[in-house]
């Protein structure tokens, strides 16, 4: 009971001091938000162009009386190229990311490529089209995604154009439509850069605030003998540590909420918010508070603590998938990332928020827990109030 009171008393004094320290507040809370604004704006600009779609053309075409493949013509039209070979002028909303081999399982292919937008052109499309028989073009997409509507609209436009073209040529009539548009729902959410960026920056803020602060505090208090002084009060070192951990959990939660809000409302990010995030928001700050304290404790001076802290923090900051998805990095860096504690936090957050892959997230929770326990025990053991 009195232990809790002491912890809270220490938390209040520490929290007040933290809030009064503009620099700490800036780096802990404001800086990640600036980063998300910055990165979000940079990459939102480049991504706002065309919607990429995967196209599977199952149509083999005809070889007699002439070589003709209306399916291929349709696929070209999706890319903005008319059957007569001219490019559509002006901005065209979609493009073909890749032509998928007809033998592939299309839904699986989309899932494997974290994509939702796709189009299937059926077998015998050419034959049916020329015979005036109705055929369905199937547009795959996630109805919750804005890109889905763009793709459907565009494909409908192309189909109408093909229909008109055919009947104008053949009957000079507009009555029946041969090409219908069918839609199919794909659950894979096409991940955008902003979707990766949110868990990445949450990881960044979970790492940076407690890590830098604890490295500094632990080495500084040791130098100025503030620990010695605290040891002359009934405050236990574990109570002191607990108050720091609680503070950085609170900060992480605030930072988390800010980043999620900016990501969703500012950049239309698609992320899932579930209770599975909670373990990371608790374990993360605990892990890096302990690691920071460990670095500060084993260092002989404030300066060497700061150097060691930076050596540990900076690679982790850039190579754990915080700013860019790991998959964009060379293989050896991806392997290296697995020794960085932050990797498991960021990967876990991605698994929960972006991929909805809870079973993979459980492994991350397990690894993070293990690392946290190791660092926490080591820090608590090596850290001394008094000297001998």
């Amino acid at each position, binding site marked *: 009971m009195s232990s809790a009171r*002491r912890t809270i008393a220490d938390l209040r004094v520490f929290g007040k001091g933290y809030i009064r320290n503009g620099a700490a507040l800036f780096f802990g809370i404001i800086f990640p938000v600036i980063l998300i604004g910055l990165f979000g704006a940079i990459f939102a600009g480049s991504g706002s162009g065309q919607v990429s779609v995967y196209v599977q053309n199952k149509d083999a075409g005809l070889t007699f009386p002439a070589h003709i493949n209306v399916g291929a013509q349709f696929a070209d039209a999706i890319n903005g190229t008319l059957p007569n070979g001219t490019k559509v002028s002006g901005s065209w909303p979609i493009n073909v990311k890749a032509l998928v081999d007809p033998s592939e399982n299309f839904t699986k292919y989309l899932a494997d490529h974290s994509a939702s937008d796709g189009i299937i052109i059926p077998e015998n499309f050419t034959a049916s089209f020329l015979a005036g028989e109705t055929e369905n073009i199937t547009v795959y997409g996630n109805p919750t995604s804005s890109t889905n509507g763009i793709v459907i609209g565009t494909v409908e436009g192309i189909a109408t154009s093909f229909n008109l073209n055919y009947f104008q040529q053949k009957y000079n009539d507009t009555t029946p439509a041969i090409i219908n548009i069918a839609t199919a729902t794909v659950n894979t959410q096409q991940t955008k850069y902003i979707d990766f960026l949110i868990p990445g920056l949450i990881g960044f803020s979970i790492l940076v605030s407690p890590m830098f602060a604890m490295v500094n505090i632990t080495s500084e208090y040791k130098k100025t003998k503030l620990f010695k002084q605290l040891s002359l009060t009934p405050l236990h070192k574990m109570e002191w540590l607990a108050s720091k951990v609680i503070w950085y959990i609170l900060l992480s939660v605030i930072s988390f909420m800010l980043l999620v809000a900016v990501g969703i409302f500012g950049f239309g990010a698609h992320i899932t918010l579930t209770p599975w995030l909670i373990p990371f928001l608790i374990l993360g700050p605990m892990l890096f508070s302990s690691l920071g304290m460990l670095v500060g404790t084993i260092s002989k001076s404030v300066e060497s603590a700061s150097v060691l802290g930076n050596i540990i923090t900076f690679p982790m900051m850039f190579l754990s998938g915080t700013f860019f998805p790991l998959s964009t990095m060379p293989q050896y860096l991806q392997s290296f990332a697995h020794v960085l504690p932050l990797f498991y936090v960021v990967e876990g957050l991605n698994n929960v928020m972006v991929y909805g892959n809870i079973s993979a997230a459980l492994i991350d929770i397990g690894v993070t827990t293990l690392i946290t326990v190791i660092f926490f025990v080591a820090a608590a053991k090596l850290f001394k109030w008094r000297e001998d």
Partner: protein
Amino acid sequence: MNPIEVRDLKKYYGEIKAVDGISFTVKEGEVFGLLGPNGAGKTTTIEILEGLREEDEGEAKVLGLDPWKNGYDLHKRIGVIPQQFTFFEKTTPREAIKYYAALFSVKVDPDEILHQVLLEDSAKNRFENLSGGQKQKMGLALSLVSQPELLFLDEPTTGLDPTARRAIWDVIQGLKAKGKTIVLTTHYLEEAQHLSDRVAIVNHGKIVAMGTSDEIIEQFGSGERLDIHGSPELADYIRANTELRVDYDQSSQCLSIPLVRKIDALAALAAAEQSGLDWGEVHTTNDSLEDVFIKLVRGAVDESGNVTTGDNAPQTQTQKMTKRRNK
């Protein structure tokens, strides 16, 4: 039982004998000063008593407790200002007092404590903006929160300007008047003399002298002397006509006669009068605590507490009897 009992305390750091067999007792309500240059072992001694360091040998009992083994219990009953007191930069004295009150589970009136240490005016200033003297006062304030029976003040005025130092002295004297037992370390002779009932002079980890200032001067001083302003001839005359030893200092043209008995002064003056030679100002002198200190630590101590070598040490200064008696 005395609040502090120390017997043959030793603490070594490798080859360095930081504390090398120190014994002393502090009585209730007493201000006890540990005086010595930097590196003499004062802080190590006081930190062992506070339970911050473990002794290698010997025994220390503080309020009847072993400070190292029972540190947690002891800390609730003692107040401490460590050397160069620091605190959380963004915290104000008032907040700090409330914080300590919560840690010690005591109810205190922050204003009363701030008043006691003369810090009311800066109650709401952050620690980082306080002056050196105010910071030390805040340290004193925090050491009082738990209403301790015993206070340890480790160099409470080091680095402060004379005005701030005086202000801290006032606070300490106020605490003494309230009957607190206080252990004080300092390298300022004046401070030790001004505040302490008894002083232990510490050098190279050992106590080289202990007692009241007068007792130490009595024991280690060169005793009372009669100084007469006059010529070398006068010195020769007195030597020839009395049993007295006469030292002569050429530069100041001054005879100096150790007084084994008070009556020796009369014999010397009678001889001077008989000589028919000119003689001027006459006064008696005695060693100050500083003279004794310089003799014992073989050098003076500068402002920051370091020993200046014997050669550079200021010459032994004399002090008029009347001045010392007034103390």
